[in-house]
């Protein structure tokens, strides 16, 4: 009986193992979608800064590093009252400044990112197909390292992120994080509701 069952299942499985072919049109669609996404740049400046690496340090260099740390500590104390808003770490926020649109299916949302060293900032999310080149979601530099854009976002729950200089993905540090379970990529969450 057991052998008979196994034979039946093997017969079914053998039929299902026949290769399935998909047209090459799929390749074109995938590549069109991929070309709209930010280009990877592992050896760009950002990547070099964030990639871990092993460094061998001689005692002389240790001494120089210690001196440098001491010097920065002194300089830091001298500038204790410096403006914290000029911190290098990007700071972002999103809020709803405008009236809802005529169709009432979306709200205009302002996205703000503080990134003093950035040359370009865009907002990507499930509401624009994660397209960093989408014209409506390109942030403008407002001065002092502040970038912002106000753009329509459909009502509902959404995931989004900022793309800096076409290569660095920055989740909004002031918004709740959402983990994409496919590959553990952190994004920010936003809930867009109809204004009363």
């Amino acid at each position: 009986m057991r052998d008979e069952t196994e034979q039946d299942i093997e017969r079914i499985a053998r039929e299902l193992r026949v290769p399935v072919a998909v047209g090459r049109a799929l390749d074109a669609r995938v590549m069109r979608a991929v070309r709209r996404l930010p280009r990877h740049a592992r050896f760009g400046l950002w990547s070099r800064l964030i990639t871990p690496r092993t460094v061998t340090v001689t005692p002389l260099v240790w001494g120089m590093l210690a001196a440098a740390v001491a010097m920065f500590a002194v300089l830091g104390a001298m500038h204790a009252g410096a403006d914290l808003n000029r911190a290098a770490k990007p700071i972002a926020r999103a809020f709803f400044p405008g009236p809802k649109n005529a169709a009432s299916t979306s709200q205009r949302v302002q996205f703000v990112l503080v990134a003093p060293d950035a040359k370009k900032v865009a907002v990507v999310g499930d509401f624009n197909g994660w397209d960093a080149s989408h014209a409506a979601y390109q942030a403008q530099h407002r001065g002092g390292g502040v970038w912002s854009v106000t753009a329509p976002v459909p009502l509902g729950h959404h995931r989004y992120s900022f793309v800096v200089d076409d290569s660095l993905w920055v989740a909004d540090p002031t918004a709740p994080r959402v983990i994409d379970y496919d590959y553990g990529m952190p994004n920010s969450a936003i809930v867009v509701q109809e204004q009363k």
Partner: protein
Amino acid sequence: MLLEAGSSDAVVVARVLRGDVEAFSELVERYRDRYARYAFHMLGNREDAEEALQDAFVRAYRSLARCEDPERFGAWLFRILVNRCRTLGARRGRRARTFVVDEVALLGAAEEHPAGTTAWREEIDRALQQLRGDQREAFLLKYVEELGYDEMSQLTGVGVSALKMRVMRACERLRELLSEVYDA
């Protein structure tokens, strides 16, 4: 610059990560048909299978820098595809779509089937789509993709004993659904 024939996945992944977007097409071509089979059997129709595949490739590109073992890009991509099939399967369930048997012919199976075996194949496809999603997933991974239970557990996040139970139930149900064909 053209890729050398037979470049390993790790080589291609490294080129994409250095900014060569077009190199990604090599990975698409390499895995497109290999994984179309799973997506098609899991979702039961061409449209959803292609959507799942496309979605999996695009997600893989987006998060390529997080692929910890580029030499095993295929396994990593397959995990993404399994998740996309789950998501699309759930959506399909909500739409209550009807499985179209003719999709088998439309998809253009790589091997020609003699007329006598086409009906048998259609019966199998119909029975497969009547399984619960989790049982269909476990059956396909075990018997069609021929994975071991440990691999299946890593891939799905489901315990080995639960997977064995799902496979057993799937086998029983398939035999039950196909009993009339066997008898004939």
